[in-house]
């Protein structure tokens, strides 16, 4: 196997001059395969669009590698991207865990890595080559709680966390602080796990506490199923409020009528087309015949941001275009308008507060975000 591989690499290296390689580091076969697959679809679409005109006169080539949510494999992949494929940039995993395992390698190898989705703490601190582009929970979470408690007047909260999902655990912390800061009252905290399908026990517990609303920090699959169980047990007028983890058509595909009225924040909404997103959504539907979700949008934007930085720096060398990328300002992505702070942390504005109406997200409120 090794012999064949090196020959192949040799071949690619000579051809490297007329393509710009961007690595896709994601999960295609593991537990988080749905995030990885969607990110990749978004990236491919972006690359296709860019290749119509070329970037710096070259073609973008997405080099895919599946890590099946195994950090050892992810680490090897990043090494391969850097040493063998000689990629210019890596679109990193949407999860914080994998990003933290791979970012130090990228940074040391001086290749730009932009995580399309990781929201946990201490990611960009890993080094100057590490970026991320996603609406930070620290921004969206408080805005949402503020709205629910102060504008809708709901006080009593049932908070549900998915304990095996780091995103959910992190967001729950943010939600909790925001609830308390706004004078809300957490009447019960429950835990679920990603992959669970039965929530009857937790919902029965919640029912006994009569909350005004349910805050869930996890993803759409469990969110939809929890709400179904909530209705099944006869709680007919409370809704779910959550993070952008709920942003997927799967949410109502699974939840049906039960998720009507649910609220979440996000930086991207297929139902709220702006000039940029309208075209993206239309093209996406044409290409994949389904609605895009948050991961599609983030994967798409990541490639576009990289390409823009390359054009600006007139170079595909990460050591060169990294600076241009760090100066990205008001980039009109489909997942929101992005500006990088000095520490490469994104500020995305505005935050949309959305609500499910007739099995679609509809706009409740646009919250502008302070640019510092």
């Amino acid at each position, binding site marked *: *196997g090794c012999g064949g*591989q090196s020959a192949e690499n040799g071949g690619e290296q000579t051809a490297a001059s007329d393509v710009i390689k961007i690595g896709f580091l994601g999960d*295609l*076969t593991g*537990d988080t395969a749905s995030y990885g*697959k969607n990110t990749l679809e978004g990236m491919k679409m972006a690359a296709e669009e860019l290749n119509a005109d070329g970037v710096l006169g070259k073609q973008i080539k997405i080099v*895919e*590698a*599946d890590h*099946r*949510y*195994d*950090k*050892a*494999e992810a*680490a*090897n*992949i990043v*090494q*391969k991207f*850097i*040493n*063998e494929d000689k990629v210019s940039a890596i679109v990193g995993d949407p999860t*914080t*865990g994998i990003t*933290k*395992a791979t970012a*130090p390698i990228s940074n040391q*190898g001086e290749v730009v890595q932009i995580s399309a989705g990781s929201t*946990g703490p*201490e990611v960009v601190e890993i080094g100057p080559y590490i970026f991320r582009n996603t609406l930070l929970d620290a921004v969206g979470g408080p805005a949402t709680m503020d709205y629910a408690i102060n504008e809708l007047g709901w006080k009593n909260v049932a908070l549900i966390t998915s*304990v*095996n*999902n*780091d995103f*959910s*655990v*992190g967001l729950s912390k943010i939600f909790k602080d925001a609830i308390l800061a706004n004078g809300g009252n957490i009447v019960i905290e429950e835990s679920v796990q990603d992959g669970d399908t039965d929530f009857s026990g937790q919902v029965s517990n919640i029912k006994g506490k009569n909350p005004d609303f349910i805050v869930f920090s996890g993803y759409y699959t469990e969110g939809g199923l929890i709400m179904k169980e909530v209705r099944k047990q006869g709680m007919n007028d409370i809704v779910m409020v959550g993070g952008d983890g709920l942003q997927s058509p799967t949410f109502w595909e699974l939840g049906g009528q039960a998720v009507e009225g649910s609220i979440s924040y996000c930086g991207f909404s297929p139902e709220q087309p702006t000039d940029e997103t309208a075209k993206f959504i239309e093209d996406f539907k044409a290409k994949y015949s389904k609605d895009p979700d948050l991961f599609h949008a983030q994967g798409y934007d990541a490639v576009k941001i990289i390409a823009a930085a390359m054009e600006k720096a007139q170079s595909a060398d990460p050591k060169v275009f990294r600076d241009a990328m760090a100066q990205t300002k008001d980039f009109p992505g489909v997942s929101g308008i992005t500006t990088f702070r000095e520490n490469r942390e994104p500020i995305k504005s505005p935050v949309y507060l959305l609500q499910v109406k007739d099995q679609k997200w509809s706009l409740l409120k646009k919250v502008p975000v302070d640019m510092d």
Partner: protein
Amino acid sequence: MAFLDGLLPAYYESIIITVGIYIILALGLNLITGVTGQLSLGHAAYLCIGAYTSAIVTMKFGLPFIVALLCAGVVSALFGVLIGFPVLRLTGDYLAICTLGFGEILKSVLFNMPYVGGAMGMAGIPPKTTLLNTVIIALLVIIVMIRMERSRFGRSLVAIREDEIASECMGIDAFKYKLQMFAIGTFTAGLGGALWAHKIMVLQPRDFGFMKSIEILNMVVLGGLGSIPGTILGATLLTAIPEILRFSSEYRMIIYGALLVIMMIFRPHGLMGNMNFNTLVKRTFKRFNAGADKEQKNKKSGMEG
């Protein structure tokens, strides 16, 4: 000292370190399942304990890596004994499911432990694992395993696998031996865990699930239960195969699954059967000698077995 580091492209270095860690893990499991016949479906749990221990020792107590490495082994072994004490009295599939259960319990507990970051885990672990120290530890483990296999202790373990009642009637305190053996096997897993932690730099409970245990088990069975060279080969192959299959992208795991079935069907006793190191050396040597006279003829048969 660091003559090995930087000798190879970083990608290959990274893969070799991964292979080395898996060899260490698989040899520990081989001792438990291959040599002694106690099916464990929870080896990843000890990898996990070793990894977390080592991360805690270096990050929270600021102690050097070598200390962390030892602590990882010892703490893993302690848990091994703690779990082994009740569980090793069970047999066959009941033992298997209990080891599996322990792995799941451990994960569940870690998710709920803020000290180690819960689901977010621990990040920023100093990268102390190098090609050199991995190779040294792997070699040490291999040597220890080979020596043990040939000793009175190793022989008794095989006897327990073959017939526990008869071995008790020969004066072997089967339970005590199983416990000692489990301690050694889990100690080894702990070492692997320490190397893992300081290579990957991030630990999350989800990395150490059931499937990780299964992966390690696959290496042992595929290589040949009870065979040290087999286990090394199995660990190398199964780390390399997904890497080689990388071109096939999302078909990769389908192919991997099918390959497992095919390899088992064609080599039901594993790639190396139960060949031990001695026979391997003898055979290679024989072939080498024979090759001096009849090089031509040997080329054909040299491919198999």
